[in-house]
Every structure is written in C-alpha cells, then in structure tokens.
C-alpha cells in the first residue's frame, strides 16, 4: 500500500479502540512524558519536548503544536511484552493452578525505531532459543505497533551508532512521520493488518513533497544524535577489557541501584518469589524483573559470584555490547539512551565504552 497523508490521529485512535485495542501513547505524567492509556489525540503532549542529559530529564514547552517532538520515555514496550511482575502458578494440595496468561490487546502509539529494534532483540531472547516462552508470544502477538519516526532526538540518543534509527524500517504495523505546515502525518503500513487499519481512515495519497519532507525529518534527526559510539570491533574490545582499571573507576560512582536495567528496553533478567497463604493453604510463585546489579543476583553456595560493584557493572556492559552477540547474534544495546538519562549519578555508557582500552 502506498504512503498516505492523514490530518489527525483521532480517527486512528477511534478505529483501534473500536477493534478492541487499548491505545497506549506518550502522555505527560508528573512532568515526564510516559506511556499511558489515551482515548483522544488531545491527551498527547502537544507543544512539549524534553531535555535529556546524563542523570537529567526536564519537560520543556515548545513554541509549536507538534505532538511527538521528544525523545525516549522511561517506559518502553518491555512493560507490555514482559510485565514487571506476573504470577506463574499456585499449588493447592496436589493441584497446580496456572493463571490464564494475560495478553491485553494494546496499540502502542509512538514507538520509536530504537523501541522496535528492542522488541526484535526481545523476540530473539524469548522466542528464538531452545525454550520459547508461550506467554511472551501471546503478549507480543496482541500488540499493534504504531511507530512515529523520531524528529527531535535527545541529548543521550545514539541510535545512529547502533544502526537502529532514527527512521523505523521494520517491525511495525504502521509508521508515521509528523510534519508541520500544515500539521499532518505521512503514514505507511508495515503489515497487512496495518494496511487494513489505514484503509479505514480518512486519508489522501502522499504527494512527493510530503515524502520528501518526511525523509528530511529523519535525515535531520540522524544529524542531531546527542551521543555516539564507535562500534568497530566492539564485541572483541569489550570482552578483552575484563581486567581494565576503568571498571573500578566507574564502580566508584555507580550506586548499583539497577535503574539502568529497569529502563533498558532489552534487559530481560527476572527472579522468582515464593509465598504461602496460610488461610487457604496455597503456595504461590511470582516472577518479577530483576537486575544483574543486585548482590543476590549471582549468589551461589552462600556467596555472590559478583560481589563487587565493578564486577556487576562489567557484567552489564559486557553483556550488552559483547556477550549478547554470542548468545543472541545481535547487540543488546539499541542506543535509546535511557540508561544514561535515568542514571542518578549520570554514568554515560558511551563515555565508558570510549574509555575502555
């Protein structure tokens, strides 16, 4: 299906809702642009942008009417593909009860190219291995993905270095590019279902001028990356740096708070927790997000394998940029910059990579 131009997102939101999707989109909450349910275009952060830097996030008013002129939200699609907590089973006597896997039909409106790349990484983790996760598959298949090409990258973005953006090229149902003067969106379908949704909307064919303007948005965005990483030989370079004194240096600043792993769209580690309901006599097990920065993460035989902060930071960074390739054939980093922005002490992964031998 050829690219089209749509004037408003309201019909799209309405059609998606009519088809049973909850629409989750960028929305201002406590001075941060988060992902949240919307029912109307008016809830989008019109005329707002953000300022992102190591350890710093500020909401900014803009002097325009644009709806998507900001960079990554601390929320990513991970919240929807891998819930932060879920019940695995309950045991009552000699009966095991498995709760129905929750797979809400959610349309994620405003996915960035880096977010789509992160979903592709997660797919490899949970579907590409020896033990595919049927619950992940259900949640993943219940999503409708509307990409919005990045126009204003943040100060911590480096998707160009990681080869994931700023223009969405795959993995979406619909891709939009927001244009000004007049305000409109160039829309393209990336799936049969996306094309079907698009046909249900008021639209006009895209003119060459619209397509050129959309290309210009992505070209300009690519030129405004806040950060860059030299990925040449990065897998070998990081793996070979295991005894670098730099790990101690970063550990002297790192709080091992796990924020970076919580906001990372590809970090997938989990732990389990057990409890017993004495009234009902049932034992329950839940799975929740975990982080390689916690001390208990590597505990075996009464002591942690990675007791020092340096070893834990090295594990995280080495996994992202080196051993992820061994395990899943791809980088574990998509260049979204969330870990830099939301690090309370502003540790900058791109700086740490540059400082390794």
């Amino acid at each position, binding site marked *: 299906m050829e690219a089209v131009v749509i004037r408003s997102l309201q019909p799209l939101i309405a059609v998606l809702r009519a088809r049973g999707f909850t629409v989750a989109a960028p929305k201002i909450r406590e001075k941060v642009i988060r992902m949240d349910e919307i029912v109307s275009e008016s809830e989008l952060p019109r005329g707002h942008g953000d300022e992102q830097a190591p350890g710093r996030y500020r909401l900014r008013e803009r002097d325009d009417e644009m709806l998507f002129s900001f960079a990554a939200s601390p929320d990513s699609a991970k919240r929807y593909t891998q819930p932060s907590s879920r019940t*695995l*089973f309950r*045991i009552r006597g*000699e009966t*095991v009860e*498995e709760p129905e*896997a929750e797979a809400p039909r959610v349309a994620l409106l405003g996915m960035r190219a880096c977010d789509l790349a992160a979903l592709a990484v997660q797919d490899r*983790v*949970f579907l590409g*291995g*020896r*033990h*595919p*996760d*049927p*619950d992940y*598959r259900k949640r993943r298949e219940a999503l409708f993905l509307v990409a919005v090409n990045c126009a204003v990258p943040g100060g911590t973005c480096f998707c160009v270095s990681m080869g994931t953006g700023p223009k969405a090229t795959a993995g979406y149902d619909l891709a939009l590019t927001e244009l000004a003067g007049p305000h409109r969106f160039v829309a393209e379908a990336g799936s049969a279902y996306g094309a079907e949704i698009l046909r249900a909307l008021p639209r006009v064919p895209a003119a060459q001028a619209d397509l050129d303007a959309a290309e210009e948005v992505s070209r300009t965005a690519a030129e405004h990356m806040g950060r860059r990483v030299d990925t040449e030989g990065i897998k070998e370079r990081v*793996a070979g740096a*295991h*005894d670098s004194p730099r790990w101690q240096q970063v550990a002297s600043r790192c709080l091992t708070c796990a924020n970076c792993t919580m906001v990372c769209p590809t970090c*997938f*580690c*989990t*732990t*389990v927790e*057990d*409890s*017993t309901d004495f009234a009902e006599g049932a*034992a*329950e*097990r839940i*799975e929740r997000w*975990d982080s*390689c920065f916690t001390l208990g*993460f*590597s*505990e*075996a*035989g*009464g002591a942690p*394998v*990675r*007791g*020092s902060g*340096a*070893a834990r930071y090295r*594990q995280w960074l*080495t*996994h992202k940029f*080196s*051993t992820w390739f*061994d*395990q899943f054939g791809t980088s574990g980093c998509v260049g979204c910059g969330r870990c830099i922005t939301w690090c309370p002490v502003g540790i900058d992964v791109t700086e740490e990579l540059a400082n390794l031998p």
Partner: protein
Amino acid sequence: MKAGTRQPLAEPDEPCRARAGSSPGPANGPVSDEARPMTPQLYRVRSRRADRVDTVTLRLTPVRGRCPPYRPGQFTMLYAPGVGEVPMSISGWARAGGYVHTIRAVGAVSGALCGKRPGDVVGVRGPYGTWWDIPAAAGMDVVVAAGGLGLAPLRPLVRELVRHRARYRRISVIAGTRTPTTLVYARELALWRGHGVDVQVTVDHPDHVWKGQVGLVTRLLDRIVFEPRRTFAFVCGPEAMMRATADDLVRRGVAARRVELSLERNMKCGLGWCGHCQLGPLFVCLDGPVLDYERAARLLAVEEL
C-alpha cells in the same frame, strides 16, 4: 545412617537414551507451544535416606504421568512448595521411574527439601543442561574426581562406567570430603571397588578412627595410575577444587578438552530466560552445567565473571 533404616544399597540406574549421538548438547528440544516451562510437575517423595550429617537422598516419582528421561550430569529445578526452587543435579534414576537427588541443607530451599518425608510432594522441572560425555571416554583411562557433594552428579556416571566396565581401561574415582562423616555414598564407593574401580578417599579433617588419606583431592592424583594422553577426566566439586584438579591434570598431560567439569551458578529458570547463571557468553543452564576445561578455563580464570 539411622539404625534400622533399610535402604537398597543401590537403586539400579537406567540412564535413558533419549536421543542418538554422543556429544554433549541440548537435551531438551523446543517445548510444545502451549506448555509453560516455568510450571513444575508434582513429584512424590518415595523414600528418604539420611546420608550422614546434613545430607539426605530423596527418591522422587511423578504424581501423574511419566518422568522425562535424563542423562548423567543433567539437573532438575527442584521446588519446595512455598519456599523456593533450586537447581539440583540428578544423582540417580529410580527403578520405578523417577529421580534420585542427594541434597545438602545449605539454605532455606535445600533445608526445606531435606525436611521432606515419604509421601510429601515437591515440584520438578527439567531435566535441563548438558551431560557427561561418557562415550568419549571409551578405550581410555578414566579419572573421576569429586569434592564433597560433587560426588552426587558423578554417581550416575560411575554407575554407567561400571555397567560397561570392559569399554574402559583403568577407572579411578578420587573423592575428597571435609571429614569422614561428611562422605556420601560410602557403601557404594566400596561396591565400586569390587567392580574394578580404584577408589581413593581423602579428608580435610580426620577423626580418631580415620586411617585414610588426609589433604587435598589433587594429592590423590599421585596415588592413582593413568596414562595422561589416553585419559578422560570427569570433575565435580567446589570451583576452586575443580580448577586445581583440572589444572593438575592438564599439567600432567591430559588434554583440556578431555577434562569435563560441572559448574554451579545461581539459576531461577533453567531455560535461558532469567539471566542469573551467565558466565561470560554462556548460560550455564543451557551450555552447562557440564563443560570441558578447554572452554571453561579461560572464563573461570576471570575473577567475579
């Protein structure tokens, strides 16, 4: 062992041949789409034998259905309802179709498992992981080195060697343990001696009746006979013990690729999902626990990896 407790001296082991081929590799193909791999199957404790101080051996059979086949070296995720789940090496195959696990109480979960009595129910997932490459040892001298409870995952391996004794040249089992009373499978070790296996035991701390060797298990390498270039070794115990033993074997001329270790790491899933058991590029639950020293040496040499 408690007086009056009658236990079979040894459950007949029947390591399953689920698949053809001999090299270690994935034991579990992709699961069916609807099965949820994090949900355990319920198993009933059929028998419980207290092995010395803080260790028990449980024989488990499925409450419903059949138990999947396993190969010596693999592990299960063993769940004490309401308490937690731990990876546990399989130390035998029960005749009635189930697993034998020898468990030492070192934490809340293993403590709860050790407290299980016949008739109680536990959860089992798996078996998972790689196995000892027993066929690769055919025609060779075989050295089996155990530290402490490291003997548990080696037990089904030795049974397999003994069953087909003629396939191997010399077989030596060397075992180190803290004190004479922490030695597990003492009667079985004696049984193996009668099957053409040189069994040597050393303790860290002797008591007044101990007349055997004292000191590190590596010292027993001087007391057994093997031709390094025609030797295959299986090693399991605390990591420091495994590295010392493997290094010693390699120094004596045994090829590192013919020295297999079984690693222990924190695991929450056994499936490659939870991320806890990573050792550099490896997931110990998928790529291990059994690894050859050619692959493991470089990784184990990095501190806190």
